[in-house]
């Protein structure tokens, strides 16, 4: 009984310890792209811990929902994982990171360059052997991403294909699984976030990143915008941001969140 009383006291003390001072926290709602929701959530948590008394609510539901919610005033900030379309020029975009996707092969594969048509042919099953694109006489193993992944979406848009056009041999989930699959199969072709692939290739994993249309697949080229298979991750507002919204956007674009952005294999925008 004494124990129970003591436990109750400790419990009550724990409640009293909570900061009750700031009565009404300032609240900010973000909604939009599911690609961005994880990284935005991490940034929001760090923002909350730096600016006491703020609460950032991150909801995902696709880039178009982000646009709609900002227009209707349901969210202060929308998350849009692409360049704004011409009919969306009433909104303001603030890039917080870049996402680049690179095509990877096994390091021992003699093929050094693939054109967009060749990649499209390989992924739709029209080209099934490496000898047709200048490689050895061996069947190609096509590694594709699972439905709903942003990398798949970006890749399909680049090739102008639908998900059901792809004829895959292996479907993977996250980047690391894709890299391990290609590293373990000398005839495989896959595509993953460039940040992840560059990191692994530097750590002696036998994969190589293919250049696209003459541009090397590097984080640097994603950052300067010359690499085509990439896109900005934007925070979108209706008007010029001010107050808490502005503070949050500035924080999300600053070097204080570089580690969080890189942990999701995106490329930070802050200049170093």
């Amino acid at each position, binding site marked *: 009984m004494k124990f129970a009383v003591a436990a109750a006291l400790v419990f009550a003390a724990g409640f009293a310890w909570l900061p009750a001072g700031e009565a009404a926290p300032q609240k900010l709602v973000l909604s939009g792209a599911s690609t961005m929701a994880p990284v935005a959530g991490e940034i929001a948590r760090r923002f909350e811990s730096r600016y006491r008394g703020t609460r950032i609510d991150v909801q995902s539901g696709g880039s178009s929902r982000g646009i709609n919610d900002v227009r209707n005033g349901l969210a202060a900030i929308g998350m849009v994982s692409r360049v704004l379309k011409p009919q969306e020029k009433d909104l303001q975009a603030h890039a917080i990171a870049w996402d680049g996707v690179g095509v990877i092969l096994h390091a021992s594969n003699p093929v050094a360059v693939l054109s967009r048509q060749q990649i499209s042919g390989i992924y739709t099953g029209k080209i099934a052997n490496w000898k047709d694109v200048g490689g050895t006489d061996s069947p190609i193993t096509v590694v594709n991403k699972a439905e709903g992944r942003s990398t798949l979406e970006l890749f399909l848009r680049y090739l102008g294909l639908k998900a059901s056009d792809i004829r895959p041999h292996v479907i993977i989930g996250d980047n690391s*699984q894709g890299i391990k699959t290609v590293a373990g199969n000398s005839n495989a072709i896959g595509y993953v976030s460039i940040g992840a692939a560059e990191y692994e290739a530097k750590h002696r994993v036998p994969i190589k990143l293919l250049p696209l249309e003459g541009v090397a697949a590097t984080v640097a080229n994603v950052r300067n915008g010359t690499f085509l298979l990439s896109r900005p991750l934007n925070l979108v507002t209706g008007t010029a941001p001010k107050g808490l919204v502005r503070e949050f956007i500035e924080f999300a674009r600053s070097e204080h969140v570089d580690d969080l952005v890189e942990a999701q294999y995106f490329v930070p925008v802050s200049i170093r």
Partner: protein
Amino acid sequence: MIWLRHSISSPSASADTLMLWLLRAAAGVAASLVLLILFFLVAESWPLLMRDLPITHFVTDSSWHPDEGAYNLAPMLSGTLYAAGGALLLAMPLGIASALFITYYAPPRGADAYRRLVELLAGIPSVVYGFWGLTTLVPLINQLQPPGSSLLAGILVLTLMVLPTITLTAHAALVAVPGDYLRGAFALGMSRWAMVRGVALPAARMGIVAGAILAAGRAVGETMAVLMVTGNVVQHAGGLFDPERTLAANIALEMPYAVSDHRAALFVSGLTLMLLVMLLWSAAARMGRG
């Protein structure tokens, strides 16, 4: 002693009542958790289940392309059953043989060490099996026939994972066979193998079957290891070297980025998986009674 006599002479009814209600509450919580999970699965998949009637479109759609509104679960159902069935087919003889070895053939010290080794096998996290499969087994199979990620890889990894369950339950069932039976068999002059085949195995049959169903449950629900080695292409596997996808892997693969209908379709996968496991359990319960 005084304390004991006191409590016996004047049994405190209130303590018993309290205990009874506490236990009832605990049992209620456990039971309602299962029902809640089931309810949750149905509630999340309900919008999609009811929108496009009849429900059979989940097995008759052209393919599984949630972004294009096609939700055919049949290839994943067959994939789940192929992988789990294949693993059981391999693990059953191996597991029962191991159990027989531990129980009747191995020298006592060796049997003990072997049993501990099997227990250790049961404790290895599934992602470790998956990692080993992805980096070792899949490239090996790839050399036989590309792409390597295949039903075969899934079956082999699952076999390793359910083998300890089958071995340990079969061992427990064999140990539980009354000593009188075995002594009787020896007294009749039966050889050891005749005793095992004619007396021990039939007497332990229930326990062995129950263990196999437990293993089947694990094989059906296993996610990470299978996800890493089976290739996850949504298709009816035409052979051992074809890639395929299981229901559990489907959820793990697509859930992180799924929204609206796609998300609901994944809950339908979960519901199907749950029904499959319930079917297995009711089979186990029936077997236990009969």
